[in-house]
């Protein structure tokens, strides 16, 4: 993790990145862990994450770059009763990459995470295990100048090793989340959305254009002469 962080900092100091962004996200999550006897433990709850993102390349309609995020999720087992309940927490960091095309983006993150389960009530127990897994994201971004509103779906899947749990088999785990996120991009070099590009072009066109530009070429000389004469008369 330290290696990834230092790599990120070195790339930043070497001006590898075009833009920097900071994002906060909050959403709902569901997880399922399969027991060795093929029954499922189903959990639901909330998830949050903060992300630092940068771009290697930027264009009018796309950008591509790395990111680093911290994520946290807290869930309850759907089988909880008044006398026994099970709470699940997952948290960790995930370096990743993201590609945006127009208003849509896809991403991959390599999660280094800890999963902790606590049973309370008639029977108390705690287990905690650390493992790595990949996550995929897909979503849509709606920009407002330096700000952007993002809505995305995230999924990860792996098996919790039985060596960590003592169970007779690995425990397949699936996680699905949806997030609503707000992103702020620092500096003026944020890649522009297609309609921002069109708007800037229109402004540029308005500033640079003169009446002469719209005249046929043979008339431009006489126009410039008469314009100059009138200006001189007024100055006199």
């Amino acid at each position, binding site marked *: 993790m330290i290696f990834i962080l230092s790599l990120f900092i070195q790339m930043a100091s070497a001006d590898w990145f075009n833009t920097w962004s900071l994002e906060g996200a909050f959403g*709902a999550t569901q997880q399922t862990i399969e027991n060795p006897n093929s029954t499922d433990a189903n959990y639901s709850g909330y998830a949050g994450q903060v992300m630092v993102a940068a771009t290697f390349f930027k264009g009018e309609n796309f950008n591509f770059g790395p990111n680093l995020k911290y994520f946290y999720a807290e869930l309850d087992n759907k089988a909880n009763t008044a006398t026994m309940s099970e709470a699940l927490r997952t948290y960790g960091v995930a370096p990743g990459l993201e590609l945006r095309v127009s208003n849509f983006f896809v991403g991959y993150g390599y999660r280094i995470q800890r999963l902790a389960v606590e049973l309370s009530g008639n029977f108390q127990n705690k287990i905690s295990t650390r493992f790595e897994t990949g996550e995929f994201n897909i979503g849509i971004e709606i920009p407002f100048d330096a700000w952007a509103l993002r809505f995305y779906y995230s999924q990860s899947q792996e098996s919790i090793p039985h060596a960590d749990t003592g169970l007779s088999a690995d425990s397949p785990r699936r996680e699905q989340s949806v997030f609503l996120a707000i992103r702020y991009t620092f500096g003026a070099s944020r890649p522009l959305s297609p309609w921002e590009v069109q708007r800037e072009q229109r402004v540029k066109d308005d500033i640079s254009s003169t009446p002469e530009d719209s005249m046929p070429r043979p008339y431009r000389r006489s126009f410039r002469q008469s314009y100059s004469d009138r200006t001189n008369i007024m100055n006199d």
Partner: protein
Amino acid sequence: MSLFLFGCGSDTGEFYHASLGLGTPKIIVASNVVGQYGLAMYDINGNFIRSLADYTPANTAPRGLEVLNEFEFLVAYDGANIDGIHRFDIFSGETNFVVDTNLSGNIFQVRRHEDHGVFVIESNTIESFDDLGARINAPRIATTIGACVLSTPRAMAFTSAGYLAVVGIGNDDLLIYDVTDPANTACVSANGTLAGAVDPVAILAHSDGYLYVATQGDDRIYRFSGDGLGAATVVFNNPAFVLNPTALTEMPDGTLLIASDGTNSLVNITTAGMLVGSNYLVSDSFTNSISDLIILQEAD
């Protein structure tokens, strides 16, 4: 919000087995101390986890335990007014498995075989039930069948060949029964080589193929061949640790766990007769007078 995003899933599912602690084996003991009848649970290192049940208010003594799965077991109990068998879940407690007016004698150990049913010692007979608790035969094993005579039987075990091995403190015999046919139990052998007031009270069919027998008369652990024939060899003989043994089971690592009433403890030894560790595994109020003990663990 979750319902909106993921749909109205109605599958509540179960608890995660790892968080239930099912990934680590548990020792369950039945305490037979008058006024302190109950069940207690320990981890495999002998650390007390919790008391599972108090049988004192009902004035019933839990006498036999048998594993069903990683969190359920059977409890055969002998009461002042009623006897029976409970199905016990370590998370939710007991439910009735057998309530039969014919089960009214002195109840001791209970054993289950996947094909042959549930067997329970009742005085000088052995009763049996199917997995729904319905009685099979009356009784399944009578006091005398051929050369096999049940005389104050105390413990049973199914051998690797599927025969039922029984020991009792009346004639000290090791009896081997073929219980394949519910209507016609056969005596395979009656081994009287332990005769001499050694009082065998516990028997274990070990995964190594041998039968291990604990005797109260001489405070020893004996080893018989897997078919129960021939003379036994002494595996352990140290009354400082095993004095008046009452129950015997196999630990996950293949060592033996012995309930020793004389030292109020659980003692862990190897099958070669060496003490594991330097002292008792457990010695507390629940190990004072253990009638039976089992290990709950996930099946491989």
